[in-house]
């Protein structure tokens, strides 16, 4: 038990149990649906997960600092539409430049959120509820009810979603999913090993203490919102690539799925704990439900009810079970320490 406890932390148990739940879900669907274990199923789930995952990584950073970004759905729609229009008018635009423009546009919208939260000291829920309406409203007004259509886009963009970057046997890892994986890996390593990124955890778990030791609170919160905006911008580009036809409604309601993925993935809504990989697992869980339920024959209308239940269970298990586990862990560590303290005075 002691050995086990030193190897695994409570947070990891949470992720492992989510992984187990995903396996159970896949086995369940596999036993109910003929031909479920196919590469088509994998491709379908992985493409739908990719976009949510990228936005969820940014959301994770914001939630870690004890804030929330509800405007991401509008940012995704905003960038998807405007970058789509830009590419449709300038077909020769360099693909990398297009991606860079998407990220920059998203980041700029994130700066507005971050400045209002950090310097305006307006609660993040209020700011991002407001910008959720404002960004979408500006998009609808500026677009003049036009849409971006697939046939106005250059061929490289239309082919991007089916581009296979890493064939493992007959299994495709497609470009969008590969991009999401790279982002998850980069950010997971970043928040684990960069001392700078540990500050997200520091100000989320104890803002007063973080202030007292002199962390630049405002800058860190601004950075979290800018990264969230930038990744939402990238997701906007991915949405454009995946669907081709973009109306002003693109990305509406995405924020709910993203927040759900983050919460199911074990990121604490009060900040200070949670991992980027957890958010990805949350997104995979949601994507698996979304893409599998309608093939079961029972109606797809069950998805939302199940998702609501899943969020509730995730938060409840976090609060009730994980608290107990953490106490247990802390107690055994105490036992481990006691003999040293009781012995000879330390030199």
């Amino acid at each position, binding site marked *: 038990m002691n050995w086990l406890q030193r190897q695994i932390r409570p947070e990891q148990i949470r992720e492992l149990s989510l992984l187990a739940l995903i396996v159970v879900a896949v086995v369940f669907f596999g036993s109910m649906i003929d031909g479920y274990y196919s590469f088509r199923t994998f491709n379908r789930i992985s493409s739908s997960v990719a976009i949510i995952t990228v936005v969820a990584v940014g959301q994770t950073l914001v939630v870690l600092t004890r804030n929330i970004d509800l405007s991401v759905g509008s940012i995704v729609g905003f960038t998807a539409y405007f970058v789509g229009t830009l590419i449709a008018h300038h077909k020769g635009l360099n693909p990398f430049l297009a991606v860079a423009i998407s990220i920059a546009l998203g980041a700029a919208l994130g700066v507005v959120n971050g400045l209002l939260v950090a310097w305006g000291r307006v609660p993040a829920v209020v700011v991002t509820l*407001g910008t959720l309406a404002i960004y979408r*409203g500006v998009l609808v*007004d500026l677009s003049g009810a036009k849409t971006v259509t697939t046939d106005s886009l250059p061929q490289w963009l239309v082919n991007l979603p089916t581009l296979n970057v890493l064939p493992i046997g007959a299994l495709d890892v497609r470009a969008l999913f590969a991009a999401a994986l790279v982002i998850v890996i980069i950010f997971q390593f970043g928040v684990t090993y960069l001392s700078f990124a540990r500050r997200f955890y520091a100000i989320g778990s104890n803002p007063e203490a973080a202030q007292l030791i002199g962390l630049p609170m405002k800058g860190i919160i601004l950075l979290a919102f800018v990264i969230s905006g930038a990744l939402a911008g990238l997701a906007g580009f991915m949405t454009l690539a995946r669907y081709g036809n973009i109306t002003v409604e693109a990305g509406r309601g995405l924020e709910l799925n993203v*927040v759900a993925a983050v919460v199911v993935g074990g990121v604490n809504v009060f900040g200070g704990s949670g991992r980027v990989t957890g958010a990805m697992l949350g997104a995979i869980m949601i994507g698996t439900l979304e893409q599998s339920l309608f093939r079961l024959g029972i109606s797809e209308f069950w998805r*939302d*009810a199940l998702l*609501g239940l899943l*969020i509730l269970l995730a*938060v*409840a298990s976090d609060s009730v079970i994980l608290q107990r586990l953490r106490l247990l862990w802390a107690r055994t560590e105490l036992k481990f320490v006691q003999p040293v303290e009781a012995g000879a005075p330390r030199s």
Partner: protein
Amino acid sequence: MNPAALLKRWETLLLAVLIAIVAINVLESRYYLSVGNFINLFQLSIEKSLVALAMALVIIGGDIDLSVASVMGLAACVMAWLFQQGAPLPLAILLALGAGVLAGLNNAFWIAYVGLPSLAVTLAGLIGYRGVARILVEDRAIGGFPLWFNTLGQQALVGPLTAAIVIFLFFFVVFVIVLHGSAFGRLVYVIGSNIQAARYSGVRIGLVKTALFVGSAGVAALAGILYAARLGSVRGDTADGFELDIITTVLLGGVSIFGGKGNLVGVGLSLLVILNLRNGMGLADITGNTQNYVIGGLLILSVLIPNMSLEIRNKWRGRET
């Protein structure tokens, strides 16, 4: 209270804004100042206004209820589904209200007794209750209700006032008495401003929170049925996204998102500001979309301006000493 303090109050600012909006509307449109327009102005979002009253109490108590719009949809769908299955409509309405209360009890159980954050629980409710509503109605639109239901809430009851407006006024008076004139109301403020202190003083936090969430869901269910009656048909996405407008109204009314601060006079004024602003913009041919983001901007400014003015005042004081 001395005049200087009265000037600094949030409600005074709202009143000034309201007067300015009304003045502009009167000058801009000759259709504005008519009884018909005013009844219409209230009637068009009476359901949201009703829920905003209950939401104000929840937020003052330091929590938030994101699930209200889904509870509105759930109640409407439960009623329509039962009616379609052959249940008499009055019974269907009663059971739909019961479904709303159940949803509220479910929220309250996890928040008040398990101790989970209300943001997460009611987010799950927002998605989950909507899901149940969709399971019941799927992608159909259920209509064909009897005539008395289709005019429910819209017939003139007292003078030109419709029944829905009378119901709203009744709830406004009830909530003012509960929040500002009863011991329960004081407990809501105590819990919202300092939950630790409330716990150590022996306040039964669980009971108060249960009452707040059941009340909010119950009022939302009633509003959902009134909304269904006004539209004459029910779909799975009935009242989808209403929580945004409702929370905006409450926060614009000077209720602090952190709890413990705010009152129903402010919320009432904020309702009038938003309704008159939307109505005026509508009469001036400004689209609903533009109206939405003007109100989004108003929401941010309503917190930003007091913060900034406080900061500037503090800087001035610092310079003097």
